[in-house]
C-alpha cells in the first residue's frame, strides 16, 4: 500500500500543478485540435471516403500532441531541481516512474476524450465505440509507458524537444501500427476476433515495454 500511496501522491501533485497552470493540457489540446482541423481541410478535396484516412490522422494527431505533454512532464521536474527532490525521497524509483507515467497517461487521455467527438464530427466517423475506445486506451498506455522513460532520458539534454521524438517514434511504431490497424478495422465494421493478431501485438507491446521501462528507469535517472 505504501508503494501505491507514493504513486498516487506523485499523480496528485502533477494534477494539482497542471490544474493551476493548464500548460501541458492546453498545448496538447490546441496542437491536437489544429492537427485534426488541418488534416480535415488537407484531405477533404482529395479523399472521397474520410474513414479510410481517419485512423491514421487520429493517431498522428494524438502521438504528436502526446509528445508535447511527455516533454513537458519532466521539464517540470527538472525546473528548480525537483527531480532531485523526487530521487531523494526514500521510495522505490519505480514509484516515480509509475507516478509520472500514470500522470502522462491521464493527461493524454483527457485530451483524447475532448478531441474524439470533434474528430468524429469533422471526419464523419463514429469513434465513440467501446472497442475503439479500448484501443485508444491501450495505445495511449504503451505510448505513455515508453514515452515517460525516454522523456526522463532526454530531459538533461539541450535538444530534448528534438531528441525525444527521434528516440521515441521508432520504438512506438509497432504499437502505432497495431492501433491504426485496429481502429481502421473497427471503423470498417470488422469483428475484433478477426484482428486478434493486432490486439495481441498491442497488448504485448504495452506489457513488455512498460516492464522494460520499469526495470531501466533507475539507471536512466541516476548519474
Amino acid at each position, binding site marked *: 500500500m*505504501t508503494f501505491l*500511496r*507514493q504513486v498516487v*501522491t*506523485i499523480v496528485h*501533485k502533477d494534477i*494539482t*500543478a497542471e490544474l*493551476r*497552470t493548464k500548460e501541458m493540457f492546453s498545448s496538447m489540446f490546441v496542437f491536437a485540435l489544429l492537427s485534426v482541423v488541418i488534416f480535415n481541410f488537407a484531405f477533404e478535396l482529395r479523399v472521397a471516403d474520410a474513414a479510410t484516412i481517419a485512423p491514421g490522422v487520429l493517431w498522428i494527431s494524438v502521438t504528436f500532441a502526446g509528445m508535447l505533454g511527455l516533454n513537458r512532464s519532466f521539464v*517540470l521536474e527538472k*525546473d*528548480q*531541481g*525537483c527531480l*532531485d*527532490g*523526487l*530521487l*531523494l*525521497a*526514500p*521510495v*522505490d524509483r519505480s514509484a516515480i516512474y509509475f507516478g509520472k507515467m500514470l500522470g502522462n497517461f491521464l493527461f493524454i487521455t483527457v485530451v483524447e476524450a475532448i478531441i474524439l467527438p470533434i474528430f468524429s464530427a469533422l471526419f464523419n466517423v463514429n469513434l465513440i465505440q467501446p472497442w475503439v475506445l479500448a484501443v485508444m486506451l491501450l495505445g495511449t498506455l504503451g505510448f505513455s509507458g515508453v514515452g515517460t522513460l525516454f522523456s526522463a532520458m532526454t530531459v538533461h539534454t539541450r535538444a530534448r524537444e528534438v531528441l525525444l521524438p527521434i528516440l521515441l517514434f521508432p520504438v512506438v511504431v509497432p504499437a502505432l501500427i497495431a492501433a491504426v490497424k485496429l481502429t481502421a478495422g473497427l471503423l470498417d465494421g470488422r469483428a475484433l476476433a478477426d484482428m486478434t493478431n493486432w490486439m495481441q501485438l498491442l497488448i504485448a507491446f504495452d506489457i513488455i515495454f512498460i516492464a522494460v521501462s520499469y526495470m531501466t528507469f533507475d539507471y536512466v535517472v*541516476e*548519474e
Partner: protein
Amino acid sequence: MATIEIRNLSKSFGSHTALRNVDLTISEGEFLTLVGPNGAGKTTLIRIVATLSRPTNGEVWVDGWNLADGAAQVRQRIGFISHQPLLYGDLTAEENLRFYGRMYGLSDLPTRIDEVLQQVGLLARQRDPVRTFSRGMQQRLAIARAILHHPVVLLLDEPYTGLDQQAAAMLDEVMQAVGATSRTVLMTTHDLGRGLVMSQRVAILSAGQLVYQAPRADLDEVSFRQIYRESVTG
C-alpha cells in the same frame, strides 16, 4: 545522531575524473565545511553521499548504512539543501511540504508542516505559490523541506548561492534555529568566511582530491585563506 564515512571514493564521468580516492569521516554531531575552487568535485562528492549519483569506486556509509545496498535507508536519514530549492513553483509552500511529507511517509503531517514553517519564518506565506517567493524565502522553505522528516544528517551544497548578505544572514539564523549545528552536517561552499563560522572542521578539495583538513579551532580566517590559496594552487 550519525556519522558519514567516505572510503577511497572515486567518480569518473567518461574520461574525466571528478573525484580521486577521497577519504573523509564526519563524526556524530560534527559540522564539516568542504571548500574548493570551481570544478574541484565538491558537488559531485555531496551528490554521491546524497544518493543522487553512484560512485565509480569506493564506499560511502551514512549512519551505519552502506550506500550500495542501503540507499533507501540513507535517504530516510538525510536532508539535502542545494543552490536549487527542489520546490515546485506552481504549488504553495504548504502543498510542497505536504507532497514531500507523503513521499517520506510522515504521520501527523499538518502539525509537522506548521512546525517547520514556523521554524523558518514562513507560516504566514504557507498558502502562497512558491514562484512568488524571493530567492531567500525559497531557500528557507528548502530548509523546511529538508528537515521535515527529522533527518539526522544535513547535506548543504552551496546553500548561499544567489543570496545577498541579508538573506545569507537570515539563512544562518534559520539553520541555527533548526538545529543545523547539532546535527551531522556536510556543507560545501565558496564562502570561506561563512564556512568557518558555522563549522567545527574544515576541509579543502582540489582537483578531486582532499588536500587539507583541520579542526576549526586551530584556524582563523586569515590563516585559512592563506592555506586555501596554497592548497589549490600548489
